[in-house]
């Protein structure tokens, strides 16, 4: 069996960083990354980007050396992705924050509102409902992160955790401040409005969860395969007939419901920002689906049926 030689150069400076000889032809990029780490321990595999061309796309961990367009002496270019952090860690941190922070405002912990309000409770039912909705939403997210989601990537750049936490924690504090304020004004149309909004919220949360489960079942544990999602027996998944990312559709719906229920501008703004971000993600996902699958259902839109 012929062995390969692999040399790894810095993509920017072309400096020779590492030379590996006697590499198995069926070695994967993941294995080569591990070998590279041995000589440069500060560059653990998650922060390595190896590519055939300095300006090209990163090679995947599963790619096999033999199958790449290289000779028996392969030249790979290395780019440092920067410090990495696992997706699971980021998700848990960014979701635990809002859960905890909202409750600080709900229980009117000292130094937030005037001292005469410390540890008092709101007399409005909707405020208690809102706390239940907000808290269970984030508990759901935490549980999904631990038990449901199957991530394509293990890690993301470290700076994302600061950006993401600022966004989630900041908005949670801003919303919670007003909803739990002693001067909070309940919705204009009273119990009717609250009931309707709560119904929307619950339906969309169930929908979002159903989609997450359906997506999980598409992908066997530990794999990174991609398949076209289709509606299942669960009626909530029938939204797949009309959109590529119904999980985002339901998520926007949930927050619109929460905004109507609390009649609070910061909640509406949070929904708007979230909608914008999710639309960008949905369009990207939709484009990848179209590129990867020739037979992708033509009726589907990225996030809003028929519109967007």
């Amino acid at each position, binding site marked *: 069996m012929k062995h390969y030689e692999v040399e790894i150069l810095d993509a*920017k400076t072309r400096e020779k960083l590492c030379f590996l000889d006697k590499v198995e032809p069926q070695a994967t990029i993941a294995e080569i990354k591990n070998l590279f780490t041995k000589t440069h321990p500060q560059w653990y595999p998650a922060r390595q980007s190896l590519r055939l061309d300095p300006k090209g796309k990163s090679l995947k961990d599963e790619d096999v050396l033999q199958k790449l367009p290289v000779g028996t002496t392969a030249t790979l270019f290395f780019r440092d992705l920067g410090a990495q952090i696992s997706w699971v860690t980021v998700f848990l941190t960014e979701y635990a924050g809002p859960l905890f922070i909202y409750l600080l405002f709900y229980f009117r912990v000292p130094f937030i509102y005037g001292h005469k309000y410390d540890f008092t409770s709101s007399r409005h039912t909707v405020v208690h409902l809102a706390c239940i909705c907000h808290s269970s939403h984030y508990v759901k997210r935490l549980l999904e992160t631990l038990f449901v989601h199957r991530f394509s990537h293990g890690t993301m750049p470290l700076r994302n955790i600061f950006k993401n936490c600022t966004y989630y924690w900041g908005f949670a504090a801003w919303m919670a401040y007003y909803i739990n*304020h002693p*001067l909070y004004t309940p919705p*204009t149309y009273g119990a009717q409005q609250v009931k309707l909004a709560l119904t929307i919220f619950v339906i969309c949360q169930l929908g979002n969860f159903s989609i997450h489960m359906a997506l999980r079942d598409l992908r066997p544990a530990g794999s990174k395969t991609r398949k076209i999602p289709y509606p299942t027996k669960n009626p909530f998944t029938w939204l797949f007939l009309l959109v590529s990312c119904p999980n985002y559709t339901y998520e926007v719906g949930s927050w619109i419901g929460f905004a109507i229920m609390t*009649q*609070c*501008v*910061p909640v509406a703004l949070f929904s708007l920002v979230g909608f914008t971000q999710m639309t960008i993600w949905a369009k990207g996902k939709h484009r990848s689906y179209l590129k990867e699958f020739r037979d992708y259902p033509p009726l589907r839109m990225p996030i809003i049926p028929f519109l967007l």
Partner: protein
Amino acid sequence: MASSEEDGTNGASEASDEKEATGKRRRLGFLATAWLTFYNIAMTAGWLVLAIAMVRFYMEKGTHRGLYKSIQKTLKFFQTFALLEVVHCLIGIVPTSVLVTGVQVSSRIFMIQNEESVVLFLVSWTVTEITRYSFYTFSLLDHLPHFIKWARYNFFIILYPVGVAGELLTIYAALPYVKKSGMFSVRLPNKYNVSFDYYYFLLITMASYIPLFPQLYFHMLRQRRKVLHGEVIVEKDD
């Protein structure tokens, strides 16, 4: 930062400077080019009118007292028009980010008057804007006099800090008045369950100059080195 020193916007990207060398044409439809040309010429003219009005005022009155009041309407008119620049980014005829432009434009909308500091930023704004809009106009028309390019990449070195100083002093001077009058502010309780305190908003704005100003200033310095001296700058990866 109120002095909108964002490079390569309003239809004239840096590509148009390199264009003379590479001969590559930036793809802008005829309608978009025509509109942007008109817009940039109009803005150049507008800020020229303001500059002339300021000079005349000083020559007649010998002082800057009452200057702001006299040019207020014209200033607000042209400053409000600059909101269009956000739209230009949104519809894609200008390659800059909507967020950056939005920040720059909105940071100017809320300036309140106070005589001395107002002169500082007014002068730097007018000179900067005239230079900037002429630069874009000429670039769009493919006919950039070297002087304009030189001005656009050198004036800012002085004007930018001067303008920022003027803006900060003006905001600072206006603070007591803002606090007393409660202007632009919304209090609880109200049916939308939101509040906005303009006074604290201004304090945060002033603080934000600390991280933002150096970034924008050094960005312009780097652009200057690249455009005027042809230095190749290796950008940091993201």
